[in-house]
């Protein structure tokens, strides 16, 4: 008979448990089973009868087990006592559940433990050092009382915890004990376990732990520190937990992953995972063939699942992720740039920018008649349409969709006071946004246009009002975007410097200095245009101070070439 005994707690899928029991006993390991008190008497009897022919199987006294309560500890105590009494050769006791599956040949486990006859494998850490507690209860697990079931009477549970906190009620931890916690699946030596179970103080300890929260994660973990001479604080059972403290379940498609685990046993296995049971229980030679263990991979997959559930993918809005404002974890998925006033001031700004930075440069995405997608397209990635009505139906969604759909390629677009302003706040709050504004540049197209001055004046007043509202948003304390604002007068003094900064920040450019500059429109007479607006009683201020620079009418002056910024 082997020196390893298996203590198995079973509550569902008894047929699978039977399969695993037979696997252990075939390897020579005796098994003591504890069947949950909630299992019907008939199923229990059938189960006992099914295993009656196996001399290495015993059934222990039954307790009712409910998650987080004492029953599970009581169950493991009874079963362990039975194991110690019935099988004298057993040196290590391995606590497992009915949904555990051995990943490596039984003999390998036996050899492994035989080589470490004095070592206790149990995860055991002080409460201050563990990150995995759920519901904010860590040290309090040991100092409050928990008479109510968390699953069945959640409200009572919470209220009673609250009450005890208010009244500052505290239990005393029995002298000599330092609370430790860890995975409930351990493998202890006969020496250590019998010392725990035969301790003269056991009644007092049991009384104390009966009211501790989730005692199966702390009873042995704490007491083992009293007796063990050699603790290896890790579990030999592979068990991954999700963000609510529930164990992850393994399915058929995890076969390759489990092969690469360095653990001896995995839990929990889905009872219908036929292929896993088939592979690990029957086809030993095939399934358990030596593969290089790579437990890190398992870790990564499950850590990512938790991350996805708690943080999600930044910038994604969909059927099962609709973060409320402030909890987005990234309003958009990627950095992008919004330019205001640039295409008004530079005739060829879009194509120039696209060439200089290699990004996708759109026109006015939020223009009233249509979304001016790059290259005059009507649809863009994700089959997102340029239709203005569809866009304006959910304008923030349009922006987040666009950025999400074009992940990996930076988007730039033009904006102005003539566009749909409903997008202002989301851009301002978004750290991914790079916003560059030449204020007052909307006046240039007006200046160039051939419209009645009365209309121009009205339009100028409207645009100025809108832009000044927008600037207020951009200057607000809630703004998280990278915002740069110049007045137009300020900008044309030295236009290349700001442009260089912006392009550097986009970071796509290969050259250190920009070779070619965009062409600025001819601004001759613009000062006078502004003066005319002023004379009509409108006060254009967003563009800064422009000199009227009107020379004497009769002094012939050659038409100036367009500004070529260098």
């Amino acid at each position, binding site marked *: 008979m082997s020196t390893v005994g298996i203590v198995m707690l079973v509550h569902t899928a008894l047929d699978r448990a039977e399969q695993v029991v037979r696997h252990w006993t075939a390897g020579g390991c005796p098994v003591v089973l504890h069947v949950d008190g909630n299992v019907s008497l008939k199923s229990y009897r059938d189960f006992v009868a099914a295993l009656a022919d196996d001399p290495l199987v015993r059934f222990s006294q039954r307790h009712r087990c409910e998650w987080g309560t004492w029953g599970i500890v009581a169950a493991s105590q009874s079963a362990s006592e039975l194991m110690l009494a019935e099988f004298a050769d057993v040196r290590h006791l391995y606590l497992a559940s009915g949904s555990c599956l051995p990943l490596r040949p039984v003999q390998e486990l036996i050899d492994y433990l035989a080589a470490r006859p004095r070592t206790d494998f149990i995860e055991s850490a002080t409460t201050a050092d563990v990150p995995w507690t759920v519901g904010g209860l860590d040290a309090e697990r040991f100092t409050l009382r928990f008479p109510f079931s968390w699953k069945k009477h959640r409200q009572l549970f919470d209220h009673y915890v609250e009450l005890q906190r208010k009244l500052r009620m505290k239990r005393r931890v029995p002298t000599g004990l330092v609370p430790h916690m860890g995975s409930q699946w351990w493998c202890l030596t006969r020496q250590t376990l019998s010392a725990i179970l035969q301790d003269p103080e056991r009644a007092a300890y049991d009384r104390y732990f009966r009211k501790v929260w989730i005692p199966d994660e702390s009873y042995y973990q704490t007491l083992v520190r009293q007796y063990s001479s050699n603790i290896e604080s890790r579990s030999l059972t592979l068990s991954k937990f999700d963000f609510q403290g529930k164990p992850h379940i393994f399915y058929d*498609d995890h076969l390759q992953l489990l092969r690469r685990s360095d653990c001896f046993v995995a839990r929990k296995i889905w009872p219908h995972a036929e292929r896993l049971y088939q592979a690990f229980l029957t086809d030993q030679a095939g399934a358990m063939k030596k593969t290089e263990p790579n437990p890190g991979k398992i870790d990564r997959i499950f850590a990512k699942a938790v991350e*996805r559930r708690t943080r999600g993918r930044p910038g994604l809005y969909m059927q099962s992720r609709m973060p409320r404002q402030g909890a987005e974890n990234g309003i958009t998925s990627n950095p992008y740039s919004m330019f205001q006033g640039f295409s008004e001031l530079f005739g060829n700004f879009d194509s120039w920018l696209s060439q200089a930075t290699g990004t996708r440069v759109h026109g006015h995405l939020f223009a009233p008649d249509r979304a001016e997608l790059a290259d005059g397209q009507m649809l863009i990635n994700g*089959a997102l349409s340029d239709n203005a009505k569809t866009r304006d139906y*959910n304008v923030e969604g349009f922006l987040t969709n666009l950025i999400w759909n074009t992940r990996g390629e930076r988007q730039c677009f033009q904006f102005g006071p003539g566009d749909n302003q409903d997008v202002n706040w989301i851009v301002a709050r978004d750290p991914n946004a790079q916003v560059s504004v030449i204020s007052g540049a909307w006046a240039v197209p007006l200046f160039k246009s051939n419209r009645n001055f009365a209309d121009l004046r009205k339009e100028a007043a409207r645009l100025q009002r809108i832009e000044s509202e927008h600037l207020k948003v951009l200057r607000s304390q809630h703004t998280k975007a990278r915002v740069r604002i110049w007045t137009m007068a300020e900008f044309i003094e030295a236009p290349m410097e700001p442009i260089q900064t912006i392009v550097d920040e986009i970071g796509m450019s290969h050259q250190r200095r920009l070779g070619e500059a965009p062409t600025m429109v001819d601004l001759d007479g613009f000062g006078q245009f502004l003066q005319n607006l002023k004379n009509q009683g409108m006060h254009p201020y967003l563009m800064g101070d422009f000199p009227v620079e009107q020379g004497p009418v009769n002094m012939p002056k050659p038409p100036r070439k367009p500004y070529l910024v260098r």
Partner: protein
Amino acid sequence: MRLRRKRRIIRALRKSDELRAVQNNTSRIGPADILLVSTVRNEKIRLPYFLNYYRGLGVNHFLIVDNDSTDGTEAYLRGQDDVSLWHTTSSYKRATYGVDWMNYLKRKYAHGHWVLVVDPDEFFIYPFCDTRPIRALTDWLDNSAIRSFSAMMIDVYPKGRIDEVPYHAGQNPLEIAPWFDSGNYSVKKNPTYGNLWIQGGPRRRVFFADQPKKAPALNKIPLVKWDRRYAYVSSTHTLLPRGLNQVYETDGGEKASGALLHTKFLDTFSAKAVEEMTRKQHFAGSAEYKAYANTQQGQPDLWCKWSEKYINWRQLEILGLMSKGNWA
């Protein structure tokens, strides 16, 4: 809200008179069986693949309402052991587009079961559906104390005119219509019922671009651990009690979700559109069908150069249309 729920249930009971059992195999339903409820009308050509698909996922029993089909649907379904069939000649529209009938059947037969409510042209996709049966999902949901599971509708369409390739009974519709829109969906919250309201896809892009508000809703919650006190309000978009509509995370994370591939756009579509326009039994006076009929005489090409070709659930998850959540 409680009153609205009660009203729905009473309606369902009242409308149950309209159902005549053709074949009642419900005594075969085991205590842990996964059920599927559907209303069909002249969909015989789709049924062989439909039933096979869901049997393959592990659905144990089908509860089907036949809304007066004339194409031999009844004869086809008769004699299939895992199908229970009811017949009605009454108005689909007056039964809240079939919801009342199905609420009744679920109340009567699905209490305590996981139940999937889908149309014959909808194919349920969930994370790991290529390697794990639907019971793996429902067991996991049970384990995580989740009662309802979201699966957004994704319209799939062929490349070219939709009547170009004829559909044969038993054929996988995705062979003909594998294309879908991946990133033009708008998501809004419905404050009344707490569900999300999702619109978009090719139908909005082509038929409803100028009246986006009228575009069909794509949010669906087709998989529910049913209780006799539950009720669907409109199609499978909305449930009562409202907590069942909380299938999305508002704190930044992602809950697990799936998709319903909606294979409406096959060559069978145009005949259907003509019929439905005259029957006026569909939502908003069959406005949807009118919009289709007006577009190039009902033969639109929905395909565009940004259409994505369907590969598998992982593709949908990468595109952000569905999520594994914390299921791994």
